């Protein structure tokens, strides 16, 4: 059985993989028990599965597991914890910027990647960057406020 080594949240882990085309999402959720990234569409349309790979927010449902050797993968769990949340996570909690919270992984990871490159974006820039992240509960306004809070933190 072929094996791939993934470096996730600072730890390298070897996984046996039946199919090199398996999306990263399934390695994370099913084999590594990291549930921050969520399955939303499997089509790269909603952003619920977003992780950060070498500083870039990517859709783990569209990223084959075989092309990730030597790359740094970060998930929502690696970004921060309830005791020590990343500033974006802290801002989402402070603003109560969730309803069901299922899609929030995507907004937090996308915003964290944005702020790492552009620490003080305008709200218009944040809206544009989040254009590919869908929210069904209608929490958009709070999410925008949370990202702006993190940007100004």
């Amino acid at each position: 059985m072929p094996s791939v080594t993934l470096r996730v949240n600072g730890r390298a882990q070897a996984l046996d993989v039946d199919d090199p085309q398996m999306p990263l999402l399934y390695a994370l959720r099913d084999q590594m028990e990291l549930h921050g990234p969520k399955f939303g569409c499997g089509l790269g349309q909603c952003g619920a599965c977003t992780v950060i790979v070498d500083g870039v927010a990517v859709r783990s449902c569209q990223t084959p597991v075989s092309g990730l050797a030597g790359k740094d993968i970060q998930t929502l769990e690696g970004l921060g914890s309830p005791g020590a949340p990343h500033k974006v996570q802290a801002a989402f909690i402070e603003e109560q910027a969730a309803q069901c919270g299922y899609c929030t992984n995507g907004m937090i990871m996308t915003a964290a990647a944005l702020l790492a490159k552009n620490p003080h974006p305008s709200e218009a820039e944040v809206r544009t960057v989040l254009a590919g992240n869908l929210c069904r509960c209608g929490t958009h306004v709070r999410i925008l406020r949370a990202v702006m809070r993190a940007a100004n933190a």
Partner: protein
Amino acid sequence: MNQIVFERRQFLKAGGALVVGFAMSPSLALSAAQTYPLRDVAAENVDSFLAIAQNGDVTLYCGKVDIGTGARAAYRQIVAEELDVDVGRIAMIEGDTALCPDQGGTGGSTGIVQGGMQIRQAAATARQTLAAMAAKTLNAMPADLTVTGGVVRAKDGRTVSYADLVGGKRLEVKLDRAAKPKDPDSYKVVNQPVKRPDLPAKMTGRHTYVHDFRVPKMLHARVVRPYAIGASVASLDESSIANIPGARVVRIKDFVAVVAEREWNAVRAAKALRVTWTGGGGLPGSERVYDAMRATEIARDESLVKNGDSEAALRAQSARRFQASYQWPAQSHASMGPSCAVADYRPDGLTVWSSSQGTHGLRRNLARDLGIPVETVRVVYMDGSGSYGTNGSDDVAADAVLISRAVDRPVRVQWMREDEHGFDPKGPPQLLDLSAALDAQGNIAAWETAAYLPENTPNLRSRPMLAFLAAGIPQPTGQSVAQVQGNAYPSYELPNMTATVHWLKTTPLRPSNLRAPGKPGNTFAVESFIDELAVAAGRDPLEFRLAHLKDALGTSLLKRVAERMDWKPRPTPNRERGDAVMTGRGISYLWYKHMDNRMAMGIEVTVERATGKVRVTRVVAAVECGQMINPDAVRNQVEGNIVQTVSRTLHEEVVFDQSGVTSVDWRSYPILTFPEAPVLEIDLVGSPRDKPLGAGEAASAPVPAAIANAVFDATGVRIRRVPLTPARVLAALQGGRADIGIRGERGV
């Protein structure tokens, strides 16, 4: 049997991450040959709702569930307030049929109004009982006792704690309707924006949604469904998945699924499996659905209101008569996370982990349809993706149960995106014919509504499950759509008003309750037509509404919105609307279900002349909320309902052909995106002295008409069919039909 004590700080090792154990106890759930419930869950007993542990921690066993509404915080606040216990010392278990009383399904924004008030009464009774016990222990009068942090104090300073009085034991009292809840003037915890307990874990990836839940020896499964709804299997080639490790087929008549040890293998096996289907379909197609509705057999007519004599008033010599039809499409719950469930079917019992909004109902239905004793069935609620009514959650539970029974292992099923968009039960299409007459003064002299809406099959106990339909398992047949007739006539005191529903025997796609069932569509029609009448009368839409409204609170809400919008009376359409990008404003008003919340809404839009693209830039709302347990949670729900309904109005229509649904992804069924999110200015009106009103869904109802009215103001074009897609608006702007259809992604 004694209650099972769940320690608040008990952490369970689950899914490789530490999570707070809200709703799980795998050791309990997996114990074989168990009968349920595991504790007293009789809704007349206080102990069914509340348990005080030996250390004084309180556990609330709640029959209602928090499917992303934040009600989880509010229920605790209610208990904390009545018991005078720190809100942080209240643990909560929701919707576990083995542990929690049956408080009915969660829906219709009734969680707090019904469930919360029942819990308040349970807590008030507990408080009364504890006070009597304390009075005896301290040899004092109950009226002279004070409670802080679960410690009862007499005037002379002597104390006894709840833990001392009853810790670990039952109170053994029935819910007392006469037990007096706290005076709202003394509230310390209720009416505060207490933060939700689940967000730190959810925002850091530590929360276990049902999608994240795993049990030992569990298999992953996917259901393979035909494109044509109701089709049968003609042939199935198991060798088509032979090369996928561990994958195998489960087939029960026309129910086809694949299982595998690994999730991805189940996903690709479902894709690779060669199945030939035959038959099915027979749908009118979304393009012809409104014609089909007019041709559908009518089960019965129901009169919703009959004031005066609308027929005579419409015929009156002096009357100017108007007529218009409005169309509201089938819409999907379109949950972000496709529905998911885990089931463990054993010869001696069944456990299901589900995000169903009605776990007790699901339990009864599963037992009935599978022919197993209900005492051997346990449904454990776990958080899911927001569902806004009955999405695929119950169906996927039935999928998992059938597959688990077939493979004799616990099974997890998660639907794929096309399953959720294609097969979740839909909010049904609605058609309303409206007629009215204006008198010589330009006031409404007569109003008639004729609504075409799918009926609720009489005495139907449950929605038919997809899996049981396909597998040929007998179940009650019919359809269930909830109270879709609400607000099918105006919320003004009109002299001659008739509203009739023609209840349709069938609707093309399996229906269910979708957020504020029927009310956004009905109010779209009614409040758009009110605007049309105002225009015909040459009157300002706000002034026209105020002239017909006698309700004092309603009037004040409309005026509050107008003030915020700096509303200056002028004719509509807007003469200074601009050219390439036209701007307009619209308002709407309603009294939700003619008995709950009154609310007024004003919306500003821009419309691009070249593309027909409508953007909602600003929403101003004044919403009657009554007592708010958690004002921030109420605000979050009101905001969410408004934004979601902006999405439904501008973008959403389930597209289907003669065979099945073709809008099966986010491209063909788009929803509102971040660049489109409007500015929200919301006034929540209510006092702790009022009774609570449903927090969320009412706020969705006025949105569509306010948008359509604003689009008319911006363009001079009246759109009577939702959604207001760019193509539809552009065609209308160019003088063409405003009811052109939308293309789906999947087709034959």
